[in-house]
């Protein structure tokens, strides 16, 4: 399949030398939702050497409108996104080494995963994880590409340690979440336009065409026909705690991370135990059934109905409690079932 990449090697800023570089690189994708699906698919099709995908969630009906790696069958099977993504990507390009983790991208996990990685792509849905990615990027000198969207509005920025300002220089602190997909919805073309920008920057970085890397912050609105490009070099802050002279990497301190979170765009709370568990899902399923609960599952997770709520538990102990935004109620349900 040398013919396979012919249209990409014909593109002169890549060429055969660039294709060899792409082939030798390792990309870490944080998230396998809308942005993660599309970015992972482009890089897999482009023939990247290795792609590591991390996602904590599983496929639901409301994802299908914009998350391109998944099908109706994945929803029926409640397949974790990382597993579903891996399955589809292998069919697309068996040359690429795909590694998938069904887990939360905590600061500890990020520090473990970035070893040997050439580029991190942000495909998360929250600023807490983004700021941790930003710190890890600075600590290990690995470029990363921010992308985000809501409604018809999207944005992207490429961060090269030692060269560009970092996300903390620009945002100063974790912004209070404004409009989310919960309140603003999202349309698939917005997702694809953010992906276009992220994936183009990714290819530039993988082929080491540093001159071509975009140094401005782009944002656009596809419904209102707006597009703007903002130069950010002035934002670089020598006092920045993430990339400045006296850096402390504040977002890698896991004490700063919440242990339970209301998920963006969902009537759902996530609970993460302080330490990783190793739950035997088969045994747990049996116990719960004996207690009279309605339980469904697959090798990765169990889904349990409890009154108006539904608890989904993964074998590392992490759980999603659907049907509530109340952290206390969610913890109560978690503890009732898992002690």
């Amino acid at each position, binding site marked *: 399949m040398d013919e396979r990449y012919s249209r990409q090697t014909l593109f002169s800023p890549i060429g055969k030398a660039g294709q060899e570089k792409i082939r030798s690189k390792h990309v870490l994708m944080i998230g396998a939702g809308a942005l993660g699906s599309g970015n992972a698919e482009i890089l897999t099709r482009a023939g990247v050497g290795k792609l590591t995908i991390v996602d904590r969630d599983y496929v639901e009906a409301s994802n299908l409108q914009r998350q391109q790696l998944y099908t109706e069958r994945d929803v029926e099977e409640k397949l974790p996104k990382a597993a579903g993504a891996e399955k589809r990507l292998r069919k697309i390009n068996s040359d690429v080494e795909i590694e998938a983790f069904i887990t939360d991208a905590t600061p500890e996990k990020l520090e473990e995963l970035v070893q040997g990685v050439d580029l991190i792509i942000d495909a998360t849905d929250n600023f807490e994880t983004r700021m941790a990615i930003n710190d890890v990027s600075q600590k290990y000198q690995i470029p990363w590409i921010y992308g985000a969207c809501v409604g018809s509005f999207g944005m992207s920025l490429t961060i090269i340690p030692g060269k560009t300002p970092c996300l903390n220089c620009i945002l100063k602190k974790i912004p209070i979440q404004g*409009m989310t997909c919960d309140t603003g919805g999202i349309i698939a073309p917005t997702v694809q336009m953010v992906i276009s920008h992220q994936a183009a920057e990714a290819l530039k970085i993988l082929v080491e065409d540093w001159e071509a890397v975009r140094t*401005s912050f782009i944002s656009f*609105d596809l419904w209102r026909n707006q597009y703007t490009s903002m130069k950010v070099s002035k934002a670089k802050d020598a006092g920045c705690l993430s990339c400045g002279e006296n850096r402390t990497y504040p977002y890698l301190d896991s004490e700063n991370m919440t242990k339970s979170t209301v998920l963006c765009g969902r009537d759902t709370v996530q609970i993460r135990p302080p330490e990783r568990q190793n739950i035997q899902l088969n045994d747990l399923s049996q116990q719960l059934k004996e207690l009279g609960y309605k339980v469904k599952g697959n090798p990765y997770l169990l889904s349990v109905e409890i009154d108006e709520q539904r608890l989904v538990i993964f074998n590392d102990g992490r759980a999603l409690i659907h049907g509530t935004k109340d952290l206390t109620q969610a913890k109560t349900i978690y503890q009732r079932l898992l002690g």
Partner: protein
Amino acid sequence: MNKILFFAHLRDAVGEESIMMDAKGKTIADLKQMVLETYKSVNLENVMTAINEEFASDEDIIHEGNEIAFIPPVSGG
């Protein structure tokens, strides 16, 4: 005069994609205050600001004819 552009949900709160205001000599912080006085429902607390398509801080001074854009960071993905 200065053209002030609003992106994403800011545009909905203001009701216009852009407005004209005389902000010559004022800082970005001053301008935010001026906007808030007219459009009470706009939240400018965490927005990014550009002057003529270049990143600006709250202390930066606005000159005649400068175009200001307010861009809210979003988190979806």
